C-alpha cells in the first residue's frame, strides 16, 4: 500500500512513521503540516517498508509512505464505537474532523476542517450537500445516498450545528429518483434540511453553478462559496464527517466508481486508500475479454486525469476510474476542422463564457483581451465546450495553458516589483 503525502490541496503532510515501524488500520502515519493540510491515516496493518519517492497518478514522483500489508487489517484502538454526540461542542466537531484527515471528496481535496471555519460562521445561509455526480460515468454519490442516507443526514446535521443561521439543502440530479426518495425519507422531520432535485446536466454539480441554482447567487472565480454565505460539501465528505465525529473514525476508505466500456464488471466499491488502481481492477474482474485498454482516467471522462499506468495508488479524493477501449482524443484529432463559429461552445458554458473567441484570443496571444474582455480566467475547465465542439477543437486544453501562462506572467510581474 502506498500513501502519497500530498492527497489534498495545501502543504504535504509530514510522515510520523519510519521504515520498520508496525502500523495498524486507522493509525495516523502522517501529520498535517500547517493549517491548510491534512493528516493521513493508514488503511491496512503491517510494516512501513519505506518513505520514498513513488510514481503517482499524474506521473510525478512524490514522497510516499509505503506499507507492507500483512493482510490482517488489525485495527488501531480508539475508534469504531458509536458515541452519543448530542450537545457536542463546535470545537470538538472541528477537532474530530481535523483529526480524521477529511478532505473534499468531490475531487478537489480541500481540507474540510478549513472549509468549515469561515471568517463569519453566522453569515452562512446555506449548507449544500452536493449529491450531484461530479461527472458522467461516476455513480459513487448516487450509491452512497441510496445506502447511507441516514449517516449523510447525520453528517449534515453536525455541520449545520456549526452555522446557526444556515439551512441544509441536499442537491440531487433528477435522474436519481431512488437516491432522492432515500434522502427525503431520511430527512423527514428535520426542520432545517430539504432535498432539491437538480436538472441532470453536466456540470450542474460544479460549486458555482450549484450555488447559483440553490441560493440564487452567482459570484466570480476569485471569491469562495463562504463569501456568498454558502458551504458546499460533497455527500461523501458528509458521510466521512459523520464517521469521524460519531465513530471517531479517520478517513481511510471511500466509495469509488469503476466504469468505462473496457471494464468487465463496472460498479461501486469501498476502496481503501493506498490501493493501486490495478489491484482494484483485478479484484473487480479485470477488463472485458478481447478489449484493449486505450485510455485510463482517474475520475470521469470530462475532468479525469489520463494515467499512463494503473500501478499508482488511489488517493482520498479519487472517486473513480474510467477505462476506455478507444482513445477519444485520437478520434477527435482525425475529425478536427477549423472553427465553424457555430456557437455551441457558448451555449454549453456553465459560466457563460465565449470559448470560440477565447480560443481566437489565446491563439493570437492576445492575453489582455483573453483576461479582461472575455473573462478567460473565470473558466472552470469543465470541458463542456470541448465535448460539444463539432470541429473538435482542443478548447479546454488551450484554456488550461493560457491560464497557466497568464498566472505565470502575473507572478513574474509581482516578483519584478519586489
Amino acid at each position: 500500500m502506498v500513501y502519497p503525502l500530498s492527497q489534498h490541496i495545501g502543504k504535504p503532510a509530514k510522515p510520523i512513521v519510519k521504515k520498520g515501524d508496525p502500523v495498524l488500520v486507522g493509525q495516523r502515519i502522517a501529520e498535517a503540516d500547517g493549517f491548510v493540510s491534512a493528516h493521513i491515516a493508514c488503511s491496512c496493518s503491517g510494516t512501513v517498508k519505506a518513505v520514498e519517492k513513488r510514481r503517482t497518478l499524474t506521473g510525478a514522483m512524490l514522497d510516499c509512505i509505503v506499507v507492507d500489508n500483512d493482510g490482517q487489517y488489525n485495527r488501531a484502538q480508539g475508534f469504531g464505537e458509536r458515541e452519543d454526540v448530542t450537545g457536542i461542542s463546535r470545537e470538538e466537531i472541528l477537532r474530530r474532523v481535523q483529526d480524521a484527515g477529511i478532505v473534499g471528496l468531490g475531487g478537489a481535496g480541500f481540507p474540510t476542517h478549513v472549509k468549515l471555519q469561515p471568517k463569519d460562521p453566522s453569515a452562512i445561509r446555506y449548507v449544500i450537500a452536493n449529491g450531484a455526480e461530479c461527472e458522467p460515468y461516476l455513480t459513487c454519490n448516487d450509491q452512497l445516498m441510496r445506502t447511507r442516507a441516514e449517516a449523510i443526514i447525520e453528517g449534515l446535521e453536525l455541520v449545520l450545528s456549526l452555522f446557526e443561521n444556515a439551512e441544509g439543502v441536499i442537491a440531487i440530479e433528477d435522474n436519481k429518483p431512488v437516491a432522492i426518495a432515500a434522502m427525503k425519507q431520511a430527512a423527514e422531520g428535520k426542520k432545517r434540511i430539504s432535498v432539491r432535485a437538480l436538472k441532470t446536466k453536466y456540470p450542474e454539480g460544479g460549486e458555482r453553478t450549484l450555488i447559483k441554482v440553490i441560493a440564487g447567487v452567482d459570484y466570480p472565480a476569485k471569491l469562495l462559496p463562504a463569501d456568498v454565505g454558502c458551504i458546499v460539501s460533497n455527500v461523501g465528505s458528509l458521510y466521512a464527517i459523520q464517521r469521524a465525529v460519531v465513530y471517531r473514525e479517520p478517513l481511510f476508505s471511500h466509495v469509488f466508481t469503476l466504469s468505462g466500456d473496457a471494464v468487465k464488471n463496472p460498479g461501486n466499491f469501498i476502496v481503501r486508500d493506498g490501493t493501486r488502481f490495478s489491484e482494484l481492477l483485478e479484484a473487480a474482474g479485470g477488463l472485458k475479454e478481447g478489449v484493449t485498454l486505450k485510455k485510463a482516467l482517474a475520475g470521469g471522462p470530462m475532468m479525469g486525469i489520463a494515467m499512463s499506468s494503473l500501478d499508482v495508488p488511489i488517493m482520498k479524493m479519487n472517486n473513480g476510474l474510467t477505462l476506455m477501449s478507444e482513445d477519444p482524443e485520437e478520434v477527435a484529432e482525425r475529425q478536427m476542422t477549423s472553427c465553424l463559429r457555430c456557437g455551441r461552445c457558448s451555449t454549453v458554458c456553465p459560466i457563460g463564457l465565449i470559448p470560440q473567441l477565447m480560443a481566437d484570443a489565446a491563439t493570437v496571444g492576445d492575453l489582455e483581451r483573453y483576461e479582461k474582455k472575455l473573462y478567460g480566467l473565470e473558466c472552470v475547465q469543465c470541458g463542456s465546450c470541448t465535448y460539444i465542439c463539432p470541429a473538435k477543437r482542443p478548447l479546454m486544453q488551450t484554456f488550461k495553458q493560457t491560464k497557466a501562462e497568464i498566472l505565470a506572467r502575473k507572478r513574474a510581474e509581482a516578483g519584478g516589483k519586489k
Partner: protein
Amino acid sequence: MNTALNISSGPHARDKWTTSYIMHVVILSLLPTVVIGVIANGLHALMIILSSVIAAVLSEFVFDKLCHKKDTWKDGSAVITGLMLALCLSPSVPLYIPILGSMFAILVVKCCFGGLGKNFINPALAARCFLLISFGTAMTRFEVDGVSTATPIADLIGGNTVNITKMFLGFTPGVIGSSALALLVGGLVLWALDIIHGEICFSVLGGFTLFLAIFGGRGFDPRFLAAHICGGGVVMGAFFMATDYATSPVSKLGQFVYGTLIGVLGAIFRLYGGTTDSFSYSVIIGNLFVPLIDMYIIAKPFAYRRTAERKTGQSVPLLKRVPRPVIVLTAITLIAGLALSGVYAMTKDTIDEQKRAANAASYGAVVPEAVNFESSGAIDKAIEDLNGQVYGSDFGRAYINEAYIAKDADGNTVGYAISATSSDGFDGNVSLAVGLNAEGVLNGISFTELNETPGMGMRVDEPAFKDQFAGRSVTKFTLNKAGGSTEDDQIDSVSGASTTSGAVVNAVNAALDFFHSFMKGGN
C-alpha cells in the same frame, strides 16, 4: 499493464456531432426545396444544381491541393455553398453561370479569406451578387413556357396582386429554390435540431414583418404581409443565409440585433428599392456589420451580468432586464423608419408633379399641334373603371394610365394622347405616350419610363424602331422578330431585344384599343 497508456489533457469524451455531420444535416434540410424546385422547373434546374455543387466541391478540392491544405473539400460545406447558390438562380440560366458563381464563391469569398468559418460574407450570396453584376440579363430572366414573365415579387413591388398559395408552394416563376413551404420545413428542422440560431431567423422574420406592417401602408393586412413573406427569398434569407455561422454574431443579443437589421433592411429594400433581390443585399450588409456587433455586444459571463441581482439575491423585474442596446436599437430603427416614410410622404407630391410634367412634355412630343390637353367625363370614367387592372386580354400585362383630347388654341380637336404601360419589359415597366392626330392616324410614341438593358432593350428608344409607328393607321400591330416587314401592321423587332420590343407593341396596342373603344369620334 506493462505498456504505457496514452495520456492527454481532458475532456476525454466528445460529442458525436462533427463538422461534416452538421453539414450533411443542412444538405438534407435543403433537399425538399431541391425536389420541389426540380419538379416545378424541370430537368434543367437539376442540371444547374448539379453543376453548381460539383463546381463548388471541385474548386475547393483544387484549392486544397494547390495550397497543400488538409482535405477540406470533403466536409460538405462546399456542397452547401453550391446548393444554396443554385437555389438562388433562375431555372433558365445557362450552365456556365452556376459554375462561374460557385468558383467565385469558393475560391474568392471562402478560400482566399481562410476557408471554413473565416469568410466575411456569405459565399453563396456574394456569388449571386457577382453573377447579377456580370450577367444581369440572364440572371433576371424568368420564363414560363419560353415566355419571359415577372416573378411574384416583381409583381408585388409593381403593386399588383399575386397568388399566395402558388407562391408559397413554389409554383410561380422565380428562382429554383422559391418554395417557401419547403424552405420553411427545412429551416424549422434545422432550428429544432439546434443547428441554426432561432434568435437570428425569427428576428429576421419579425423585423421584416413589423417594418412592412408599420411602413408598408397596408397595416397588419394578413394578405399583404403573407404575400411578401411567402416568396422563397425571405425564408431562404432568414433560415439559410442569415444563419451562416461564419457571418453571424456570437452573442444571443448580437444575433438578435443582426437578425432585426437584416429583416428591416430587407423590408426597406422591398418597399423603397426597385430590386427584387432585397434579401441578397440585406443579408450581405448584415454580414458586414457582424465584426462591429461582435466587438460591442459580448455577453458577460456568470457573476458579471446583473450586479443588482447578485448583490441582493433578488431577481430584477423583467423590464429592467431588457438590455439597453435593444431599446436603443429599436428606437433607432423606428426613427429611421419614420424619417424614411416622412421623406417619402413629403416628396411624393413633388415627385408626382414632376411625373405629370414629364408626361405633359411627352404628350406634347407626340401631338405637337396641341396647346391644351383636355379630359372628358367619359374617358375619366373609362380609366376609373379599369381601376389599375390589366387592360384587355391580348396585350400581355398592359395598363392604361391617362388619356387626353388634344386641343389647339381655338379649342378644336387636333389629336389624342394616351399614356400606357406594359409590365412585360425585361427589367420592369415600359411606359410610353401614344399620340394620334384628329383622324386617328398615329403621330408617334414617346417613352416616359424605360429601364431596359443598355445597348439591347434600350434601343427601342432609337428612331429606327420607334419611328416605325408614325403615320400608320391600324387597329393592332404585330411584332416581326425576323425583321424586314412589308405589311402596314408589322413592326420590326430590335434584334436581340424581342422582349422589350414586344412590351412596346403591347403597350401601343392597348392604347390603340382604348382609343378605338372609348375615344374615337371625339366623345
